[in-house]
């Protein structure tokens, strides 16, 4: 019985962490799949968004939900501007140049935040309703974690619907599959890129804010978790929302389980597993194999 409770709480924690990973990483996966662009600065948008959310809550007393919306919107707009001005110039560039550009960008993001605000962790106070514990019948667990799971599932469902049922979703899927074909069908690729990039960065901001409770929020956030985001995207397959979802959950649960049962070698295990997975299926667990 106790074993069952242990496993249940470990699963809940892992799934909650996985949801945060998913929300941040989904934007990265879609833009990489759509634009073929290696965006190592994605964590930076999560960090910036988190700061906006924490900032408006602290200084303007804005409520949590509204702050999340503001964070999403501000980050989406800012990233759209960056995309039009800078990213778009590098779409046809070599992979190396994209890597260098985005590393440079994230350095600038981290340094700016450190200079303007400071290197300390930003506390983010959750509304009272979300604090504490909740009784789920078979186990008692942190309310916030359960809420995260619900939110994550809702977002995943919403995104899936958006991709499958809306016109723009279809356009994105078409362009991910075969950009040239999509262009010849009259789809405005440039506009699609900007919208997708803005949306993906906004999602990252959301993840940064929602996950601040567990992952913290300091300038180094942008690089600290980058490898995890990249692993989730690589394992899940580029441009696949469902792939990212399951990969994020897998990594989240694994991380939690390993922290508990194998605290020494946990990270090494995840790296080794990623290597094996990518060697077995270079396109990711759910990615499309190129013809």
């Amino acid at each position, binding site marked *: 019985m106790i074993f069952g409770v242990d496993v249940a709480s470990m699963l809940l924690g892992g799934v909650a962490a996985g949801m945060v990973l998913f929300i941040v990483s989904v934007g990265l996966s879609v833009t*990489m799949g759509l634009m073929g662009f*290696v965006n190592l600065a994605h964590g930076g948008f999560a960090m910036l968004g988190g700061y906006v959310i924490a900032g408006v809550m602290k200084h303007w007393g804005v409520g949590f939900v509204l702050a999340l919306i503001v964070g999403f919107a501000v980050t989406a707009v800012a990233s759209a501007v960056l995309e039009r001005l*800078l990213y778009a*110039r*590098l779409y046809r*560039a*070599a*992979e*190396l*140049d*994209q*890597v*260098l*550009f985005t*590393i*440079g*960008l*994230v*350095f*600038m*993001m*981290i*340094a*700016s935040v*450190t*200079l303007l605000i400071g290197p300390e962790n930003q506390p983010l106070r959750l509304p009272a309703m979300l604090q504490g514990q909740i009784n789920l019948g078979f186990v008692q667990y942190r309310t916030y974690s359960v809420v995260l799971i619900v939110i994550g599932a809702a977002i995943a469902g919403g995104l899936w619907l958006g991709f499958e049922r809306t016109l723009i979703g279809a356009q994105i899927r078409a362009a991910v599959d075969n950009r040239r074909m999509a262009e010849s069908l009259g789809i405005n690729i440039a506009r699609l890129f900007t919208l997708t990039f803005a949306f993906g960065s906004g999602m990252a901001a959301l993840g940064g804010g929602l996950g601040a409770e567990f992952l913290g929020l300091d300038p180094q956030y942008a690089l600290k978790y980058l*490898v995890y985001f*990249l*692993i989730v995207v*690589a394992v899940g397959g*580029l441009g696949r929302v469902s792939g990212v979802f399951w990969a994020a959950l897998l990594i989240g649960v694994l991380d939690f389980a390993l922290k508990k049962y194998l605290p*020494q*070698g946990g*990270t*090494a295990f995840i*790296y*080794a597993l*990623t*290597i094996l997975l*990518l*060697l077995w299926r*270079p*396109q990711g667990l759910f990615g499309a194999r190129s013809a």
Partner: protein
Amino acid sequence: MTSPPGGWADHAAARALASRHRLRAWEPIPWLLALAFYFAFPKYLGFGTEVLVTILFALSLDLVLGYAGIVTLGHAAFFGAGAYTVGMLAKHGIWNEPITGLILAALVAALVGLGSGMVLLRTQGLTLLMLTLCTMALLEEAANLAHVYTGGFDGLDSLPIAPLLGRFEFNPLYPRTQYLYVLSVLLVCFVFVRTLVYSPFGQSLTGIRENILRMHAVGAPVRRRLVVCYVLSAAIAGIAGGIWAQANAYVNLGTLGLDRAATVLIILVLGGHGRLYGAFVGAIAYMALSHFLSKIYPTAWQLGLGLLLVVIALFAKNGILGIIEAAARGRRAPRAT
């Protein structure tokens, strides 16, 4: 049209190709300068040694990145493999002769390169980048876990390295032996890389970088070439790591870290990749700037570095040497239509 008497060797194209590898007049200059530095700035020999080791490391990266076109964020794996080979052998009293220690470091790093290269180089793009990152991170974690042997987070210090050739002591306070030792090793490795680059093998690497599908279509065993290149580069990076450990009498996890891997990539790009001397220019420029700025204003340094990278990626993909080349080309044909 029949071939000219005496063959085609006199044709402009043939002569251009034949003279590609010839020593240019200015090529001895960096070495003379390095030697002059030894006499002129005896107080800065520690810094100088660090720069020379970095040049060697960046040179090894140029082989895979600049010539074969493999983008990797995990090259410190080989640096660290070499460093820890030297470190562990010395610290645990197994072996501390420097020159043979370097050879062992190169061998171990080459083995790591062979193992990882054979599997990783089946992939490309983001997957390859991720795999190089994960391999290096895995090695770093492994070194951390085996802290009994590797000293874990604190590393291994006060490595008892035997005197060079039995006579020249490695004095940590007056790194005169270290400097000349590293300079000599750098020279040997550079000559090797330079020869490789101008050989038919180097030519085929350029072909793979420029148009990999074409190389497949002319029957080149592409993956085999890439793996060989990767192994050679790993060996040289291992030498760089080993000699770093010997010169500093110290090794720690930083030799395997993302910081070191990212820095060497930035250095190479700053100097100009795919150009033998890019490593030299980049290392000197970066380390001179970093030495003065990053300690005093670390955050401003990060901001400036980030800005530099953005500018390079957008406007100066070929680094400092690229800018110099473009300027030289522009002056040669000022009124080109």
